[in-house]
């Protein structure tokens, strides 16, 4: 075998190894989703979505957990979006290259790696106890906001970094102030990237369980929250609760709830992809 043949063989070998590795993830995910669908798809109907939780599996629904998740998602968006984007803009456009900015940058990267349960403990201490918010939707949202802030900040910075310097130069040279340049040029140009990052961060938040359990979200709540100060449950906690029950009916409920939760995540990711593509086209 000469050198060229050897290289060609290596090339082929690596290609198949790559295909194999890609398939591992996809096949496992397909098996998992298939299994869940078989278990739970029959259970999903309108009643399942609108029923309150019950001791009997066949009467139970996800209404309170679903509404809890929607409340959490909405409040987390309202809190994390402006704070995270503003922090990202500050770090990228204003605080360049001083010691404080460097320190902040390292800390934010580290925060992204902190286990979510630690955020839960922080939320319990600061929001539930010190700020006396109790085990409320607001406390849970604030906790999840902290959790996803690093992701929002980092993706905002990446999106802003991708705006060409020539555009900023042109804006400044026409007499635009820094804020005008950010508002009229940088944000419109990086909006797609920022939105994508925020949505992906939120779709992570909607699946979080541990920090909310620590904050005090309940497995059983008789009513859907009516205000930010109400008690709440969320989908993952409901699923966790059902799975830990012995009766077969609750296992079926859990599978059905997982399908709905996955559906929500897929839709959110789909929206993120849509925005990304739409904004990319604008640049062509």
């Amino acid at each position, binding site marked *: 075998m000469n050198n060229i043949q050897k290289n060609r063989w290596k090339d082929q070998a690596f290609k198949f190894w790559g295909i194999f590795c890609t398939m591992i993830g996809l096949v496992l995910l397909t098996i998992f989703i298939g299994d869940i669908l078989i278990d739970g798809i029959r259970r999903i109907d309108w009643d399942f979505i609108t029923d309150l939780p019950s001791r009997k599996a066949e009467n139970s629904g996800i209404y309170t957990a679903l509404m809890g998740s929607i409340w959490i998602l909405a409040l987390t968006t309202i809190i994390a979006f402006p704070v995270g984007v503003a922090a990202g803009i500050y770090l990228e456009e204003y605080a360049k290259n001083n010691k404080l900015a460097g320190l902040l940058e390292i800390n934010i990267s580290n925060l992204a790696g902190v286990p979510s349960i630690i955020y839960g403990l922080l939320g319990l201490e600061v929001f539930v106890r010190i700020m006396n918010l109790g085990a409320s939707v607001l406390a849970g949202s604030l906790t999840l906001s902290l959790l996803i802030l690093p992701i929002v900040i980092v993706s905002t910075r990446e999106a802003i970094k991708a705006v060409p310097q020539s555009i900023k130069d042109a*804006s400044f040279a026409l007499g635009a102030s820094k804020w005008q340049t950010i508002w009229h040029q940088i944000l419109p140009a990086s909006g797609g990237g920022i939105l994508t990052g925020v949505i992906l961060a939120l779709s992570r938040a909607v699946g979080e369980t541990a920090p909310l359990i620590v904050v005090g979200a309940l497995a059983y709540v008789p009513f859907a929250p009516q205000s930010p100060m109400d008690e709440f449950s969320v989908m993952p906690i409901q699923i966790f609760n059902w799975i830990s029950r012995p009766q077969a009916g609750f296992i079926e409920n859990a599978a059905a709830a997982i399908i709905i939760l996955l559906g929500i995540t897929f839709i959110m990711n789909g929206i993120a992809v849509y925005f990304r593509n739409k904004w990319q086209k604008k640049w062509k």
Partner: protein
Amino acid sequence: MEITMENPKKKDVVLDSIVDTSLKKTPKIETKNIKVWYEEFNAIKGISMSIKPNTVTAFIGPSGCGKSTFLRLFNRMNDYVDGFSLEGKIKINGQNIYKKNVNVEELRKEVGMVFQKPNPFPKSIFDNVAYGLKIQGIKDKQLINDRVISSLKQVGLWEEVKDDLKKSGLALSGGQQQRLCIARTLAVEPSIILMDEPTSALDPISTAKIEELIFQLKQKYTIVIVTHNMQQASRISDYTAFFYLGELIEFNKTKNIFTNPEKKQTENYITGRFG
């Protein structure tokens, strides 16, 4: 006195400038012993020059000689560069533009800039030209409309784009994009236009159009242009400044620089013997 006696050529220049200033008021741009540092690097090593109104001045010199840095001082575009520091005075219309209370945004309305690579905003042709007015808070639609049209006419783009004002500025060809960028600058009504190698990314035909445009714009504006193209400098400029390693080697009428340079270095550079 003795020097002028020994060197009649220099005497001519001195007399010439006296006559010029008496005819044409004060210089538009005046720099005194300008020194620029980037961190420890001394990019400009003490340059004094004055630029007369309604002239085209070309900055030439090899890459890294400081000509772009010097140009960008006039609208304070170096302010954003890390480690930038400046010594000396720059006066535009008689005012020191690096004084503490100077409004940089106002300065940039007076001193427009065109860049090396055409850089239209990812907006419509109309919005590109109107941008400078809109950020000034001008809401008068009629005024904006008139200004956009007259700016596009000035750069000779109106006939080409009048039916597609809503089309993206990025959809134009490179040469059209650069003229759009010039129109965008004119819309703000500056009195000085800085051009940093405005044709280096363009084909010869687009370049010729821009050069012709520069020639026309001279009537109303003072133009300073950085160029690597020696023919371009000799074609379009009234004055030429030759920079080398952060110093101004020679600054004179373009005719003199290209036919009878005083310094050996200038001659070597324009004849292509180094650079």
